[in-house]
């Protein structure tokens, strides 16, 4: 339990100064580090051919974001399919089948890192670095850029709205927001994390696998090939950038990817560090500290509640072992060096932040633990993915403003700007797409024979399918991995969920922010709905919980809850 408290405390203590630093970066406040990073950024702007101060409308910003993702996606797709003859492939790995390559690309350009492959056996060193690691740095930076554009446009306290030369609302410059985040945050934080992990024993080499001769020949394993590679830089960025896609199939459960309790401590904190820091950043960047406190309060309450449930659940015995072993926590799919509590904590963090890395197998969690992690992903705004988690939260906040205003009989407005039909429609599209797509695809996959590929009979079979689509739409990437998901159906249907689950919740709020910024500000009166209050925080919390429960309670009842009751009975 002390381990859990320590991790929460250290993460928050590190996130606070990082949040201040992020706010300084995005408001282009001069800092001592400009001498180091300024020239690097300048070189990059030159190489791309952009001016970092050029204002962009939300459409230009969104298009620049989409075009960049399309091109890095195409490059990654080609590399994955052609990796067999490309350099840096000491273990002789072949190119990927088209549908698996397509799913992998969709998964990595959306900051999801859902993997229908096993990295150590199916991806070469070159593809790992150039097609995977690069996307693991770029995509969270893009999510962060979108968040900052939304915050500065619709939430920042300022006297006048920034405009483009044509007089339209400017949301900032995409290239500047992206490059600053990569150069000043993602790469330095990942680099430090990578060295900590290399120190603890995560492989960090370009050499190929070594062959070992196991000690006990009578056990039937004549040789053991030890897969290594440039693992440390990848593991660092997969944790820091809420990516989640690891080098080895079972991710950070593998001792080569997460060797010690110390590396586990570092990796667990790295999951939540930037998502937490962005909440602090929001307070500083917008000049509304109380908004930051509200968001942090709601997110932390949800996080502690759902993490607590998960930790309790995994410390219960696994029902399958009743009378077969001494009573103890559920260790099926977990590692001895971490134990049940640290694994449950990781499972909660990784689903709350849409990271998706794991240090134990979620498929083997007890049913209540599994349900708590599904709930984390349904909400997807408890810190959430880098950038997009807070964007999701802002969507819920806008919905709460709308409903709250109607409840007290006022016309809805955010900081004096009217929330009208056009904005609310966009908010609803972004929010409602989630249950429609997840439940629709789950229903299709279980209804059509031969599609589901679930490995577990009974209620848990449904949970496996539900988890996979929830994870795809939430851009999480973890899975109930017993699922036979490397099929054309799974690869393509998940790719659809991945892409829609990434770009609609980025573009719709960006449009809402720009629309809002273009409106006249009405003076605040005593009757206006005050957003930055504890009452409103409770309302927002209530709306988040109700939205998730109303959408998904029936399917939770059919899956994990039914499994729980059948085991208890």
């Amino acid at each position, binding site marked *: 339990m002390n381990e859990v408290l320590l991790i929460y405390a250290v993460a928050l203590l590190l996130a606070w100064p990082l949040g201040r630093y992020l706010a300084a970066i995005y408001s282009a406040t001069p800092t001592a580090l400009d001498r180091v990073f300024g020239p690097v950024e300048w070189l990059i702007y030159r190489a791309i051919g952009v001016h970092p101060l*050029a204002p962009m409308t939300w459409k230009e910003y969104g298009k620049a974001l989409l075009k960049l993702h399309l*091109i890095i996606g195409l490059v990654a797709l080609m590399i994955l399919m052609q990796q067999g003859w490309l350099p840096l492939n000491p273990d002789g790995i072949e190119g990927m089948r088209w549908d698996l390559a397509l799913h992998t690309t969709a998964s990595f350009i959306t900051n999801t890192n859902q993997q229908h492959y096993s990295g150590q056996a199916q991806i070469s060193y070159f593809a790992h670095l150039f097609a995977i690691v*690069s996307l693991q740095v770029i995509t969270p930076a893009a999510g962060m850029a979108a968040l900052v554009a939304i915050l500065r446009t619709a939430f920042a306290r300022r006297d006048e709205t920034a405009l483009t030369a044509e007089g339209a609302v400017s949301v900032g410059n995409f290239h500047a927001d992206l490059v600053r985040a990569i150069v000043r945050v993602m790469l330095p934080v990942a680099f430090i994390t990578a060295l900590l992990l290399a120190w603890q024993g995560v492989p960090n*080499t370009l050499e190929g696998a*070594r062959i070992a001769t196991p000690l006990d020949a009578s056990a039937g394993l004549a040789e053991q090939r*030890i897969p290594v590679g440039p693992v440390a830089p990848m593991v660092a960025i997969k944790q820091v950038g809420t990516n989640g896609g690891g080098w080895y199939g079972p991710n950070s459960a593998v001792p080569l990817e997460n060797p010690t309790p110390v590396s586990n401590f570092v990796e667990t904190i790295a999951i939540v560090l930037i998502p937490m820091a962005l909440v602090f950043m929001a307070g500083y960047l917008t000049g509304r500290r109380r908004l930051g406190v509200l968001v942090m309060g709601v997110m932390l309450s949800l996080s502690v509640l759902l993490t607590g449930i998960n930790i309790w659940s995994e410390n219960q015995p696994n029902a399958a072992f009743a009378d077969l072993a001494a009573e103890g926590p559920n260790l*099926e*799919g977990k590692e001895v060096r971490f134990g049940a509590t640290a694994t449950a904590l990781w499972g909660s963090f990784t689903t709350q932040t849409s990271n998706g890395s794991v240090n134990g197998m979620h498929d*083997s969690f007890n049913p209540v633990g599994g349900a708590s992690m599904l709930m984390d992903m349904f909400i997807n705004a408890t810190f959430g993915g880098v950038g997009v988690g807070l964007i999701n939260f802002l969507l819920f906040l806008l919905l709460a403003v709308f409903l709250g205003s109607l409840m007290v009989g006022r016309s809805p407005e955010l900081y004096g700007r009217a929330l009208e039909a056009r904005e609310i429609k966009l908010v609803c599209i972004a929010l409602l797409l989630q249950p429609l797509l997840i439940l629709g695809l789950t229903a299709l996959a279980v209804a059509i024979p031969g599609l589901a590929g679930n490995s577990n009979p009974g209620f848990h079979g449904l949970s496996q399918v539900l988890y996979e689509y929830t994870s795809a739409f939430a851009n999480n990437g973890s899975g109930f991995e017993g699922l036979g998901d490397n099929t054309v159906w799974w690869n393509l249907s998940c790719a659809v969920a991945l892409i829609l689950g990434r770009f609609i919740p980025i573009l719709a709020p960006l449009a809402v922010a720009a629309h809002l910024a273009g409106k006249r500000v009405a003076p605040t009166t005593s009757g206006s709905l005050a957003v930055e209050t504890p009452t409103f925080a409770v309302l927002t919390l209530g709306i988040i919980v109700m939205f998730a429960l109303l959408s998904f309670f029936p399917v939770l009842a059919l899956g994990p809850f039914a*499994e729980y009751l059948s085991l208890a009975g």
Partner: protein
Amino acid sequence: MNKRESLAPARPVTPAGSWIQALRGALVLMVLCGVLYPLVTVAIGALLFPDQSTGSLIERDGRVIGSALVGQPFSAPGYFQGRPSAAGYDPFALSGSNQAPSHPDLRERAAASSKAIAAANGVAPAAIPVDLIAASGSGIDPHISPEAAEIQIDRVSSARGLPRDAVAVLVATHLEGPVLGVLGQPRLNVLRLNLALDALGAQVTAR
């Protein structure tokens, strides 16, 4: 030349121009993040931590026996045994069982290993620590709990003809506690423990 002025002018970008920006942006950033970042990290990391970088390999008599971070299967009664593995301890096939508590096969597998472990070590099923029944997440968990080592001491010492105390001392010296008393669980590295057993056996024979 002023830095700001030397950049592309802040004028409207044509659609074709924005595609070219995207293409150049993609390539520049992919090289920075996918080549420079990892290669610099590998170079510096390998310099600082040469032993860890190549997989924490363990050698004996000039031969690579395994890795401290990769568990191995043991079946001879004179060796401590590790956890069940869904991957047969093959590091290229890494996997957990991915079976839910409600999966009938999980119960079946656990019953079989419970029976085998109880018989081999002369203990009741209710005394078997759960980590010896539960398969690991990675399929190559190198560790077992102190309780799991404890129930194997009798079997190992009698199979090797060693005094029980000698083996018990070896187990005690290989116990790793939580880091700083807080992080992680108490555990023993099975491969290191078994290597120490072999070394101990060699000493006894030499005497």
